[in-house]
């Protein structure tokens, strides 16, 4: 095995108005051919900048120092032209968003052939043949015909396959994948990860996978580098890292992820606080402010990444002065590093489900969009059924989760409920009141009191021109609450969701992502609703922040006796938070029932495929698991009867 890439003390900084941003502060690693290095970290940890620095794709204003040896050649200090030759013949990159990494005006074939011929001369015929071969290799059916297709004719997963084919085109020695599956659905993600494995086998390349998903790391990586605030804080082979974790940050990351394979409900462990700004960092452990076991010595100087001996007897380095005190179970001196938060038990759970009142009921909910044709006079030529007659009920104090991949109709279902659309052959009832009975605006407003929503994007859901106080108070004024009551209520709500009421006249920009989501939750609770609709409330947040918000939702549910209608694509989160779950596929429910029943004993093949596709953050389980992979295209799981 030869070392393909050797990085030593890589540092990258950018000038900014607030001062110099030290995005990467000393990264070193070696990568051998055929091996995979996983770089994990939250947003802003410097993992993407590291990969861009290796590719030589950073802006001119970035200051790079250290050493990057690729295949025996030093890359730092080379001109863009020289780098371009090295890149073209030896490195390939797979980007996050397959929708924008292909040029829309050229055919797939043209782009593949360009990748093949730009750095080496090759007869046209041979290039064509090789391109077709590559497409077949990445599993695109009818490759010959698809060569002439344009990117927009391909789905997201298919496009990522083409991107991988292009990456493989020149037999690279190194493939860098920057969040290659983040933009994809889980079943597609499983296929793409499988494919990248194959690509690596085929080319024998070294691979760098950058991701925030511990499950993906557990599945693909040989070695793992955990980054925090621009610096590696823990580096070890994958099993060592997962089973003999030593750095409190890594322990926190692993504890913060909900597990799809865990039955018992334990509260997630949030890491308090936010990552530091990378400007003028003091000479102290950057994690100290968030670390539950920080001591005075942590603030004296920044700890180095030093090797540590564990029972695993492998190369394991940690940047923590207390690493030797921590044992394999994440305990220090007999106590867990992270104290487990307590979530109060709801008195409602003692009442059997059937005896609790129904708060939200949907009967035969349907929605179809007309297909229009004609430029001037549009006529209807058909219909697309986005939601095909689904029925469900949510009872007091319970969470119903609707899971499905993009295009399954879950968002349309939500909008039907939130818009209070009268149904032709069905009904939507909120707290027993049917939407068909709404005669005027006063009655509608009365109904809206009981039904509130929390959105996915914590930034987009808050009006940037309004202070937090105005945002939270808005629903109260809409139902005609007096200003004095509103003052009390805003204070109460901000305390309830864990924000300081003194910050109420700040604007949303002054808050971090997790805090903004808390503001959104406070607004949803303003009118004391019975049902809260949660539209992917945590999918835009980093894992350590996500855990805090999930715990808050759990706590609020038991404290206030709320019902949640939870829409998500992340099954692990659903398993953690939901009582009942409905799996949606192409507009209808293919499976619907108690969460444990559905997750432990799935009946429908689509549910099975979905569950098996989720990477579990545990390398041993993840690598021995049997996987049900859906066929690439044209598969219709709804046609397969449930057995």
């Amino acid at each position, binding site marked *: 095995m030869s070392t393909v890439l050797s990085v030593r003390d890589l540092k990258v900084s950018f000038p900014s108005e607030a001062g110099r941003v030290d995005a990467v502060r000393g990264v070193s690693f070696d990568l051998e051919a055929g091996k995979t290095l996983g770089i994990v970290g939250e947003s802003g940890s410097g993992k993407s900048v590291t990969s861009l620095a290796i590719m030589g794709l950073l802006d001119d204003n970035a200051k790079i120092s250290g050493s990057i040896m690729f295949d025996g050649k030093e890359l730092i200090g080379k001109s863009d032209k020289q780098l371009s030759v090295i890149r073209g013949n030896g490195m390939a990159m797979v980007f996050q968003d397959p929708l924008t990494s292909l040029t829309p005006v050229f055919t797939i074939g043209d782009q593949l052939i360009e990748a093949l011929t730009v750095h080496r001369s090759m007869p046209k015929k041979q290039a064509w043949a090789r391109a077709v071969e590559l497409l077949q290799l990445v599993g695109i059916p009818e490759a010959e015909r698809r060569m002439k297709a344009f990117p927009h004719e391909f789905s997201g997963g298919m496009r990522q396959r083409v991107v991988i084919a292009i990456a493989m085109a020149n037999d690279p020695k190194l493939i860098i994948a920057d969040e290659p599956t983040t933009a994809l659905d889980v079943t597609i993600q499983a296929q793409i990860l499988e494919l990248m494995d194959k690509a690596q086998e085929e080319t024998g390349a070294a691979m760098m996978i950058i991701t925030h998903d511990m499950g993906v790391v557990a599945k693909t990586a040989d070695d793992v580098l955990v980054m925090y605030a621009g610096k590696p804080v823990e580096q070890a082979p994958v099993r060592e890292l997962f089973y003999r974790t030593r750095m409190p940050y890594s322990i926190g990351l692993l504890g913060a992820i909900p597990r799809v394979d865990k039955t018992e409900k334990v509260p997630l462990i*949030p890491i*308090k*606080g*936010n990552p530091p700004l990378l400007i003028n960092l003091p000479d102290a452990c950057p994690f100290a402010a968030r670390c539950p076991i920080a001591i005075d010595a942590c603030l004296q100087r920044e700890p180095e990444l030093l090797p540590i001996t564990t029972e695993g007897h492998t190369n394991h380095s940690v940047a923590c002065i207390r690493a030797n005190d921590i044992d394999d179970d994440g305990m220090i001196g007999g106590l867990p590093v992270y104290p487990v*938060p307590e979530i109060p038990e709801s008195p409602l759970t003692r009442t059997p489900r059937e005896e609790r009142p129904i708060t939200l009921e949907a009967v035969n909910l349907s929605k179809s969009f007309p297909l229009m044709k004609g430029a001037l006079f549009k006529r209807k030529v058909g219909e697309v059924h986005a939601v095909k007659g689904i029925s469900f009920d949510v009872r007091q104090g319970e969470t119903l989760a609707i899971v499905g991949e993009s295009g399954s109709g879950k968002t349309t279902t939500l909008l039907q409920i*939130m818009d209070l659309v009268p149904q032709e052959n069905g009904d939507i009832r909120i707290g027993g009141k049917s939407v068909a009975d709404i005669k005027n*605006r006063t009655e*509608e*407003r009365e109904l*809206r*009191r009981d*039904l*509130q*929503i929390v*959105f*996915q*994007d914590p930034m*987009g*859901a*808050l*009006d*940037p*021109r*309004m*202070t937090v*106080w*105005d945002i939270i108070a*808005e*629903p109260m004024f*809409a*139902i005609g609450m007096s200003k*004095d009551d509103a*003052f009390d209520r805003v*204070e109460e709500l901000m*305390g*309830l969701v*864990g*924000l*300081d*009421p*003194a*910050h*109420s*006249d*700040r*604007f949303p*920009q*002054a*808050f*971090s992502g*997790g*805090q903004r989501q808390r503001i*959104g939750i406070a*607004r949803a609770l*303003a*009118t004391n609703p019975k049902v809260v609709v949660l539209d992917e409330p945590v999918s835009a947040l980093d894992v350590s922040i996500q855990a*805090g918000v999930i*715990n*808050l939702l759990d*706590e609020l549910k038991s404290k206030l006796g709320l019902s949640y209608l939870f829409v998500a694509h992340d099954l692990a989160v659903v398993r953690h938070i939901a009582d009942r779950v409905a799996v949606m596929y192409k507009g209808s429910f293919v499976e619907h029932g108690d969460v444990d029943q559905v997750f432990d004993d799935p009946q429908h093949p689509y549910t099975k495929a979905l569950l098996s596709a989720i990477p579990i953050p545990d390398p041993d389980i993840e690598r021995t698991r049997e996987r049900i992979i859906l066929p690439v295209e044209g598969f219709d799981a709804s046609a397969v009867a449930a057995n």
Partner: protein
Amino acid sequence: MSLESIGVSPEISERPKSRKRTSMLTLYTRRFLRNRGALLGIVILVLLVLFAIIGPLISPYSHTDLDFLALRQAPSSEHWFGTNGSGNDNFAQVAVGLQRSIMIAVLVAVGTTIISAIVGATAAYFGGAYERIMLVIIHFMMVVPNFLILAMISNDAGGNWLVISLVMIFIVGWFFPARIIWTLSLSLREREYIHAARYAGLSGMRIVIRHMLPNIGSLLVINFTLGVVTAVLTETSLSFLGFGVKLPDVSLGALIGYGSSTLVSAPWLFFFPAAALTLLTVSMALIADGLRDALDPTSAAGGRA
């Protein structure tokens, strides 16, 4: 400003006694006043307005008085800004002309901004037939030769400044900004906070006024300043062509038009009204800059209180 995140459920130590909250208005004022340029703009504008109001009162001559002993005289202690060929006192004329121009400009700018904002934003928010009708009107207005209509009507009205202003609002001013506001509002309508407001039970008009208009605030402010400038310039062109305000009424445009023909022999007749016009537009631009920064949470003020 370091914000520390708080755990799942902190205890609130004590309730703040006072119910005072920084209101949006005080917040905006505080931010606006921090801006040096904006303050300078305000000072210039106030001085101009004072000059336009007090000038005619302290001047020994009214703007219609003719002093046959002083025809086309340079500025002196008798006539502070000089006189023109007919013996009119230039100081009084500039003051009255500025008064007229400010009135037209502010009326037109406020009118067009309000109409274009309401029409553009409501068309985007409510959609449907209302949106289609509004767009047809806007597109129709865009192809009509507005300036000709304006010239004809104002000539017929005998140069009445109020008629000119109204025509400038309804025939010339509002539809280009309205079209721009419509396109911007279309993307705003799909923002989640607009959905959130709708699901909170707010009425359509309140969503437009409370959420959509503030979020295109910087555009409205720019529209307003540009509106002031174009209104003054349009009125100037009209008067220059002889279709604007008629004697004995004067405006800056009419004065500049008159003064430009005697630029060499009697430069004071051009420079005084031209200086007043320049100061007016510059002060408006400075104020607009400050307003935009004060209203915009993402500006240099950075959402600070």
